[in-house]
């Protein structure tokens, strides 16, 4: 029983991080109808930047800020320079471009920072706590992960709901022509969307790496999980992405705990295929048909 409880708690932590990653895929998909397969690689790269700072004795907060800022800039750069020319072309071109970036960034990181696994120091304690006679494996670091994702998601939601900028972002994503006629600088909004996604992805990367091992390829699995979570949520709903992330977190935790950790990705694949075949619009879709 304690084991199940701890696996579920672990699932919540993982789920929060996957939700964050799914959110940034959704952010980009809403704006440009493109899945950014390079998102994981971008996040990995900024995590390495943070690691370099931390391992040179800088405080975690500074590394955190630098990584997020770098993610923001990288996202904007990717959209403006690489993705913009293929945004309107055949969708397969955009897929191939983001995949190319994925490979290139991963290889670049391996050249710059080495191929080995590194241990990212946990920013908060790694001890669980005790309730009555039950040991709970929810460490300080885990609580930090969950809170960080909640805060970030809340800020993002507030930005989209309550600010003028958020309204323009939504308008640009909703209908480019109309938004342009109403005076929204659509190009800038798209760049900003990708930049925000880059920032959010960096956060996810940092949270996953913190307190565990990471390497240039450590985000590959996360891309799969984040993508599955986003599809589960319907690819254009923020709430759906969060729920999808949690489902994936529980799945990973339970499969790894009760079956084998080597089968975790296949479990995600199974979920992905099931969702796409049974409910292509995601779990919360209304009856709008969607071509998948």
């Amino acid at each position, binding site marked *: 029983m304690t084991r199940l409880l701890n696996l579920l708690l672990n699932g919540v932590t993982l789920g929060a991080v996957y939700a964050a990653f799914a959110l940034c895929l959704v952010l980009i998909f809403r704006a440009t109808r*493109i*899945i950014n*397969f390079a998102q994981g690689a971008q996040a990995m790269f900024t995590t390495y930047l943070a690691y370099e700072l931390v391992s040179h004795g800088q405080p975690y907060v500074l590394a955190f800020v630098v990584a997020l800022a770098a993610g923001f800039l990288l996202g904007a750069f990717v959209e403006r320079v*690489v993705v913009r*020319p*293929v945004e309107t*072309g*055949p*969708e*397969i*071109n*955009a*897929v*191939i*471009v983001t*995949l*190319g*970036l*994925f*490979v*290139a*960034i*991963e*290889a*670049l990181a*391996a*050249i710059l920072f*080495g*191929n080995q696994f590194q241990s990212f120091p946990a920013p908060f304690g790694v001890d669980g706590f005790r309730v009555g006679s039950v040991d709970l494996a929810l460490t300080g670091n885990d609580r930090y992960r969950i809170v960080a994702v909640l805060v970030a998601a809340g800020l993002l939601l507030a930005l989209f709901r309550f600010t003028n900028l958020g309204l323009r972002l939504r308008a640009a994503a909703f209908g480019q022509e109309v938004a342009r006629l109403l005076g929204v600088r659509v190009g800038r909004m798209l760049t900003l969307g990708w930049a925000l996604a880059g920032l959010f992805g960096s956060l996810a990367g940092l949270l996953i790496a913190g307190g565990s091992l990471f390497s240039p*390829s450590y985000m*590959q*699995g996360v*891309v*799969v999980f984040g*993508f*599955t979570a986003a*599809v589960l949520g319907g690819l254009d709903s923020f709430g759906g992405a969060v729920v999808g992330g949690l489902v994936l977190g529980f799945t990973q935790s339970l499969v790894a705990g009760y079956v*084998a950790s*080597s*089968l*975790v*990705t*296949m479990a*995600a*694949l199974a979920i*992905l*295929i099931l969702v*796409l*075949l049974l409910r292509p619009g995601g779990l919360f879709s209304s009856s709008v048909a969607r*071509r*998948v």
Partner: protein
Amino acid sequence: MSTAITSTPAGGPAATREKGLKGLPGMRSTALRHLLLMVLAYVGVVLLLKTLDPFRASQMASVAYFIPAVAGLTVLTGLNGQISLGHGALMAVGAYTAAVLLERAPGLPFVVVVLGAVLVTALVGVVVGAAAARLHGPYLAGATLALAVGVPGLAIYFEDLLGGEQGLRVRPPQSPDWFEQLTGATSRTYLAYLGWALALVVLFLLSNLLNSRVGRQWRAVRDNEVAAQLAGIDLGRSRVVAFVVSAACAGVAGALYACVIRLAAPGSFTLVLSLSLLTAIVIGGLGSLLGAVIGSVLLVFLAPFLTDRGAAFGLSDIQSANVAPLVYGLVLVLLMLIAPRGLVGTVRLKMLQRQTAGLRAAQRTTELDTPAQGTPAQGTPAQGTGEQGTGHPSTGDHQVRS
């Protein structure tokens, strides 16, 4: 090339204008022409292999295992419009099947081993293809990405059968005596001869398939689903068949791979392998078999070259091993931005543009010579637009989409 446009109603000169092999007697049959091409290519490869040192010969063997996989993928992506990042994983299926067969039944003829690998991979292809047939673009990419990341985990999970992290050692087929007497080559280069024979057989089969009803159906499905459906094509079936054929090719590649590398291990079938295959088809040009061969050659010979460049810049071994993937990624991005048609496609487009330019010039002169061919009532406008249709850059636009 397309002589039909220029052929005159008189018919006489048209026959003499047939270029290349088509002009030879008996070469009207596409299958025969392809067969002759493949045999010639194999003779060329054999002559080349005889002059190469063992290291180069082993590189040629590597080209041979890439060709079926790349050709299968280019057919799937270029002709049927489905993208797959899972072909590395499908190669793993073929490689492990071959490894298990060679381990459990050492006396099995190599052809049977390859057929076994093809069968198992095709079965996996049916399952994956059935799901993939209903997906497109980013969704398909995501699902097959999961396959590429997930399949190595299976090899670790089924440790007793598949050898876990260490993988399975593979004892490659030994060269028969007559082979060594005939070629004077060592048994190490045997795999290069064998591999190229297999690769060319795959290319032969694929090239005929593409020219058949099946290939036309695939292109129809890619270009316009609704029109294809109206013409009576079952979209789902067509897609599944394309995926299965492509998977079977990856199975051949995997079996060869296992024999050449002499190991089937999860570490060989990374996502980078799948993405290198994608790079090869994009460089070669989507849908072109010749492009697939060029892409495979580049994959094999470019990688060590780039690694050497990296080492020359003072990078460590691990660092310089990553120069090749870095270049692959950049090439993918740059090609999509600059020349989305790939090498073969771009050259073809240029040739087409030059042809049409020449055609238009010729037309202009004939129009000047014989100003009134049709009746004046039908008018030059109608004829003019019709001819502009063939001579205009719209021919190029069409090529872009294919």
